[in-house]
């Protein structure tokens, strides 16, 4: 089965991101495919490159990046939700006088159109948070 996933809550506000990760990993291990993972509302904070938890704590951002790299999954971050919260693309960062964008490896900005496309093309669409 082909899934698309939406994550709505920030890493430290709820367990929804963790539940999504384990669902996705389990689905992949069982031979299902994940077309796109879409981060919306406060879920965009999963993509923040500069999150630096203590060494003895899990980095959810790093874990998403590894998952995207290992399974070639698109991690899409809603650009309007992200900019509103200060997570900027390279273009926007330059406009704001910053040298770097804020996106961790494997994440990319996207519009809501890609989310709707994903819901149209996949067998199941699941929202976490």
């Amino acid at each position, binding site marked *: 089965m082909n899934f698309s996933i939406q994550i709505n809550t920030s890493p430290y506000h709820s367990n929804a991101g963790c539940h999504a990760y384990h669902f996705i990993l389990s689905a992949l291990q069982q031979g299902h495919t994940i077309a796109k993972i879409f981060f*919306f*509302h406060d879920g965009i904070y999963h993509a923040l490159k500069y999150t630096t938890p203590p060494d003895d704590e899990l980095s959810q951002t790093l874990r998403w990046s590894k998952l995207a790299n290992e399974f070639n999954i698109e991690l899409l971050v809603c650009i*309007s*939700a992200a900019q*509103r919260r200060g997570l900027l693309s390279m273009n926007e960062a330059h406009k704001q006088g910053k040298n770097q964008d804020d996106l961790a490896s494997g994440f990319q900005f996207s*519009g*809501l*159109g890609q*989310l*709707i*496309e994903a*819901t*149209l093309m996949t067998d199941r*669409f699941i*929202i976490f948070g």
Partner: protein
Amino acid sequence: MIKKYLFVLRKPAYCGLYIQETVDIILTTAAFDQHISLLLLDEAVFHLKTNQQPQLAEKKQVSALLNALEIFDIKDIFLEAESLARYGLHTEDCDIPAKIINQVDVAEVIKHHDIVFSC
């Protein structure tokens, strides 16, 4: 491809940016010419309450956003009767025409849609 989308709103009006961002998704879905319905449950019934003054809380008028949905041919807005009753609201308190359904009919409404967004 046409699918039937149901957006289930459960949070109160003016609870952060949830409704504005949810309306963004609804309008994007409308741009894809999909069939769209809304179901307002629990505190979300306050979205349609008349005579709100969100500017006092530095918020945009939600009912204006929801009114715009009709332009996109989104006419199926369902309100749960029990939620209205719980908060002492009546249909005449609502800004936008909506279909009142009972709690026992919610599952049936959900069953008639392909994609359910919980918002």
